[in-house]
């Protein structure tokens, strides 16, 4: 913004990260600062790059499933879902209805837990510590529920090609209903404690506005896009699994500022709960695994694409199969990679704390960016 300042060398470079409390992981942002104003920001990525895409080429299709959950440790199931769905699409596997319901229930639970962590961490970025622990308390209930079904708490690896690997029991259904009841009570509390707080409103309203055009040019998706007035949700626009059977809204806010993104996510928690409730009501009986599951996974030649709505946006998998038991090429399109790429443009001329609020509102999960 301030060209004169750069020319006169009145700027300095501030290294935000790779180890910094606000970057939630090992992201480094090279900030050129004019006082506390950001002249230029350059995110430096790749500190936990693991080359998941090469691993896909060295493992069988089934063996790669655990990897997908490890990309985004907060909403691992969405990523499992995307991967399972693309292989099923290629092989033409019909997933039993009950399995689809279980997928939706668990993915939506996982989405709520992811948003809760984001909520806590975002307020932590803004200097409020307590909401983090309230959010973690609520999330703990989800983790317990998911653990009772999948067997683990973070990297679930619950889906299989053609279904899920375990059926749920009555306890899970009751527990989920119980959880939704308590969550319905918690959300107004969060709104009273955080959303309506004048300090928070002052910090988020009109901070970091992102225009519709910027969103489109950078390919941002998910709550970031929906906070800028773009009504795009893969679950609605390009329905997969059994999402068309549920009645839910896509929260859209038009302001484009950090508050809008915040509100989108808070509203999404409510919508996810609605989906879960409907799914529990309609849950059909039947197998959770396709009866004639192919023993050896060898998708036919060709390339396939599948997008799913992960907690952070549209997660896409482009797979190229050469008809063998390993992927020829597997491209993982992670939503936060695109979402973060607009940060550099959006934060120019902002104060450092505002830029961190903006960064927090993008909901970064670094392993997912770096893959």
């Amino acid at each position, binding site marked *: 913004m301030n060209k004169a300042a750069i020319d006169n060398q009145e700027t300095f470079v501030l290294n935000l990260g790779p180890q910094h409390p606000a970057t939630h992981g090992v992201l480094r942002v090279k900030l050129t600062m004019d006082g506390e104003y950001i002249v230029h920001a350059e995110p430096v*990525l*790749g500190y936990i*790059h693991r*080359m998941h*895409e*090469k691993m896909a*080429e*060295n493992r069988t299709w089934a063996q790669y499933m655990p990897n997908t959950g490890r990309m985004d440790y907060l909403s691992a199931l969405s990523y499992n879902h995307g991967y399972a769905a*693309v292989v099923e*699409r290629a092989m*033409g596997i019909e997933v039993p209805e009950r399995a689809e319901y279980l997928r939706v229930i668990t993915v939506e639970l996982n989405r709520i837990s992811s948003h809760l962590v984001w909520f806590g961490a975002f307020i932590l970025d803004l200097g409020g510590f307590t909401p983090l622990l309230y959010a973690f308390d609520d999330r703990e209930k989800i983790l317990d529920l998911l653990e009772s079904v999948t067997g683990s708490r973070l990297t679930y690896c619950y889906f299989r090609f053609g279904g899920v690997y375990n059926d749920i029991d009555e306890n899970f259904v009751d527990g989920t209903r119980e959880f939704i009841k308590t969550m319905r009570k918690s959300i107004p509390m969060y709104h009273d404690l955080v959303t309506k707080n004048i300090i928070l409103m002052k910090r988020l309203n009109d901070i970091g506005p992102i225009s519709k055009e910027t*969103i*489109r*040019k*950078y*390919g*941002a998706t998910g709550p970031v*896009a929906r906070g800028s007035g*773009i*009504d*795009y949700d893969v679950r609605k*626009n*390009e329905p997969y699994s059994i999402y068309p059977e549920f009645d839910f809204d896509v929260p859209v806010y038009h302001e484009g500022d950090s508050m809008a993104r915040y509100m989108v996510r808070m509203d999404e928690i409510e919508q996810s709960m609605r989906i879960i409730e409907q799914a529990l009501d309609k849950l059909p009986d039947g197998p959770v695994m396709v009866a004639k599951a192919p023993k050896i996974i060898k998708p036919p030649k*060709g*390339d*396939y*694409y*599948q*997008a799913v709505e992960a907690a952070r946006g*549209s997660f*896409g998998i*482009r797979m*190229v199969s050469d008809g063998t038991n390993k992927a*020829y*090429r597997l*491209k993982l*399109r992670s939503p936060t*990679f*695109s979402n973060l*790429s*607009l940060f550099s*443009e959006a934060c120019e001329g902002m104060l450092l704390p505002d830029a961190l609020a903006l960064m927090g509102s993008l909901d970064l999960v670094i392993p997912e960016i*770096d*893959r």
Partner: protein
Amino acid sequence: MDFAKLKEQLRPLAILEDVVAEETADVEVEQEEGAADLDAQSVPEPQQLPAINEVDHQAKGFDLDVKVEADKVVEAAKILDEQGFFLEAVTGVDWLKENQLEVVYDYCMWQPQCRVVIRTRLDRENPVIPTISAVIPGANWHERETHDFFGIKFSGHPNLIPILLPEDSDFHPLLKDFKVNE
């Protein structure tokens, strides 16, 4: 968005390609296949159609598949950008046997849902392709990533340094002849 109009706009960009008999399976095409293989360099036969194919979304996950020459990707990006598409990802595929590198651009539109794939093949020895980051700034990082993984050079790219790999890396791990040390 008018899908048919978009197809018309993209049609001139697509390379001409021998039609592989599929859903448009005609007897003529089948006859031509052998002939086209014999002299691929000859003047395009009427049966060599532009490589712009509508794809069954249910089966493949995208709607339009366009093969273009490397120097047409910018033009394609402009057309799609004007139509309101956004760029999902840029990536590559290494076709070692054919000694070619494929660059794939995934475009998507929010409403109505439409996914367009632009793909182009490059020579593996000298993979250079113009950048589309001037048209779509979001492509910047995706192209850097593709450069990291495949060594594809995006000419005109403002900042083609490694993004995910270490800044001093000189290897391209997604090439098929890259050896993985287990």
